[in-house]
């Protein structure tokens, strides 16, 4: 179709810089001033949530300095990982504009399955985990079936699932009620004790910067080669340096106490993998498209049903994995596992991190950020002696404050015409 390509841009201006109406900046200075432009226009990604987080942390630290002690932070990382993995699944379903209310029940059921199969039936632990994940995936497939074939709203089907799966959990725990997972077993150690060796954590903290640098440089050279504008190499290096220094400092601080939990490493690994899948693969593009405009995606030839299927299945499997991790963390599989506010916390984490409930907008990092906000509040409050009533009130207030910064930023984005 390119029989007559007419590039009315001269070779000197890049192909994508031909429009006179757009301001562009170049070089390191340009990158910095572009950043401030973005701050002013409110286009900030997750920065506002991070600012909210910093506020919360400062306040809690002022109230009780133990809060930022490295050992408390390590605890925080352990606690984040379990519900965080569930929130990651929630991001998947929210991306396509659906919801799963049953992640709590599924996580509880998965922990019960691991408990019974491994401890009571004597299966190898890996097999028990695989079985739990498979059953989780099956439940998700069931929701997808109800949604795709019968058009049942996911709110209703997963509400039914919430009850039915809770029933299953109670059923398989049966007479025992709760099952101890053996202390000293690998799974429980993974959930409670295992941390990365210092050298590894330092090395891993350098990886994001290195990857960013390499891909960044390659993109720059490829874009230059085809006459597209390219970000300044200076700006790239500044950003890489800032990121790497920040990460290494954090790791260094945490290594003063026990260090980075492997479980948190797993969680972050999953977040990074999901982020890659959502932003850099055809599947992720299709997820975003389906969430944004289902009919347009269908007309573009996307197999919309398989996308929903994958979203529901991934969500349930992440929920099951989260259940296994929390069983490991607690060293027990009990009837209470997954009940209470697990559902709400997982959904709230995704939403607080910036994933939209209405589909088509979100990122894997929102699960990470959101769960850190939620667990920071919980952890900060455990360090203060408060009555239950005050504790609830303050949790509510702090949650609102954490999100206000983000809301304000988004509002300014809207008023600048980029909603």
């Amino acid at each position, binding site marked *: 179709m390119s029989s007559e390509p007419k590039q009315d841009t001269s070779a000197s201006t890049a192909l994508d810089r031909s429009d006179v109406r757009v301001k562009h900046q170049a070089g390191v200075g340009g990158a910095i001033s572009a950043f401030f432009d973005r701050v002013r226009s409110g286009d900030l990604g997750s920065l506002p949530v991070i600012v909210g987080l910093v506020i919360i942390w400062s306040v809690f630290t002022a109230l009780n300095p133990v809060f930022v002690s490295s050992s408390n932070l390590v*605890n925080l990382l352990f606690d984040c990982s379990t519900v965080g993995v569930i929130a990651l699944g929630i991001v998947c379903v929210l991306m396509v504009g659906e919801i799963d209310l049953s992640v709590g029940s599924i996580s509880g059921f998965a922990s019960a399955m691991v408990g019974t199969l491994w401890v009571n039936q004597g299966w190898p632990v890996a097999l028990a985990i695989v079985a739990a994940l498979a059953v989780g995936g099956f439940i998700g497939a069931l929701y997808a079936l109800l949604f795709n074939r019968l058009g049942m709203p996911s709110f209703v089907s997963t509400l039914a699932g919430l009850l039915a799966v809770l029933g299953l959990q109670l059923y398989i*725990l049966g*007479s025992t009620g*709760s099952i101890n997972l053996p202390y000293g077993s690998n799974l429980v150690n993974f959930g409670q004790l295992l941390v990365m060796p210092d050298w590894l954590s330092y090395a891993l903290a350098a990886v994001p910067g290195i990857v960013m640098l390499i891909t960044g440089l390659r993109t720059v050279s490829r874009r230059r080669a085809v006459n597209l504008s390219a970000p300044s190499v200076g700006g790239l290096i500044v950003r890489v340096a800032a990121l790497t220094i920040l990460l290494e400092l954090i790791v260094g601080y945490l290594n003063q106490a026990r260090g980075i939990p492997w479980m948190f490493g797993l969680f972050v690994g999953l977040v990074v993998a999901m982020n890659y899948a959502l932003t850099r693969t055809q599947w992720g593009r299709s997820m975003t498209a389906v969430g944004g405009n289902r009919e347009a995606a269908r007309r573009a030839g996307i197999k919309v049903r398989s996308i929903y299927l994958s979203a529901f299945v991934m969500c349930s499997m992440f929920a099951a994995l989260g259940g296994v991790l929390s069983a490991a963390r607690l*060293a*027990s599989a009990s009837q209470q596992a997954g*009940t209470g506010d697990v559902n709400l916390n997982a959904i709230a984490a995704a939403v607080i991190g910036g994933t939209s409930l209405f589909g088509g907008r979100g990122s894997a990092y929102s699960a990470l950020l959101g769960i850190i906000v939620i667990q920071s509040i919980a*952890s900060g409050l455990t360090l203060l002696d408060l009555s239950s009533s005050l504790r609830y009130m303050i949790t509510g207030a702090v949650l609102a404050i954490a999100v206000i910064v983000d809301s304000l930023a988004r509002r300014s984005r809207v008023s600048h015409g980029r909603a």
Partner: protein
Amino acid sequence: APVTDATVAFLMPDQASTRYEQHDYPGFAAEMKKLCPGCKVIYQNADADASRQQQQFNSVISQGAKAIVLDPVDSTAAASLVKLAQSQGVKVIAYDRPIPTAPADFYVSFNNEGIGKAIADSLVEHLKALKVDPASGGLLQINGSPTDAAAGLIKKGIHSSLDNSGYKILAEFDTPEWAPPKAQQWASGQITRFSTQIVGVVAANDGTGGGAIAAFKAAGVDPVPPVTGNDATIAALQLIIAGDQYNTISKPSEIVAAAAANVAVQLLSGETPKAEMTLYDTPSQLFTPAVVTQENLKAEIIDKKINTAEELCVDRYAEGCKKLGITN
């Protein structure tokens, strides 16, 4: 006149522990079968929802229940149920938790406040026996759900014991929904906060106790300070065998449930059941629960056939069982 074909309802409050379905109801049903083979027993559990309990209560009356054994979700709210039933000639037996503002026909129970006091007392004695200096630290108190009336009673009992024990309470927490992960998270925070000052933990049930133990384990604290529990779940008994938990409460629920069945049948046949005392204007019969520690586990649990050695002494616990003389 002896009853032959009445309907009796057994309404339990929640799922927070397995005892209602594993012990109370089977005990009640078995005794009913013995006393009145033709009677029908309806079992319902309200999942900690007072409105649902009201619904179940109404529903069993619709089904023709003539006597209702009620373990109220909310002792205060249950008063209206008692009034409603009695106005229709239906007998109500308060079970487990009392109904203070409207006298039921009978009250059969353990005493939740007593349970709280018993576990705390046992822990304090243990600490005193170990000669732990009250000045060297204090205790953590993990209560049940802030919206659960029974948890309030246990909390009251624990306070009545600890407040003049000499040991101070470092921090106290109402665990939302009795959720063990919440208890664990809170305990983890306190461990970073007080580190070695914690000499013991009074937890209101086995789940929250287990959460506290997991927190100590996760923080690498060894040995774990004594932690209490309540309900004598298998998991908790195993932890006691392994030496991770200090005590729990064994409630011979079957026996109490059987007593309730007895009372129900007597009330239905027009007799007046024998009362040991009167509580809240209600003729009452109270059972004392037993605190279980390593010392008396065999006597209280195995010998009383509440659990078998096979159930408890699976692989990792076999060694501990041997040490305690449960198996040989």
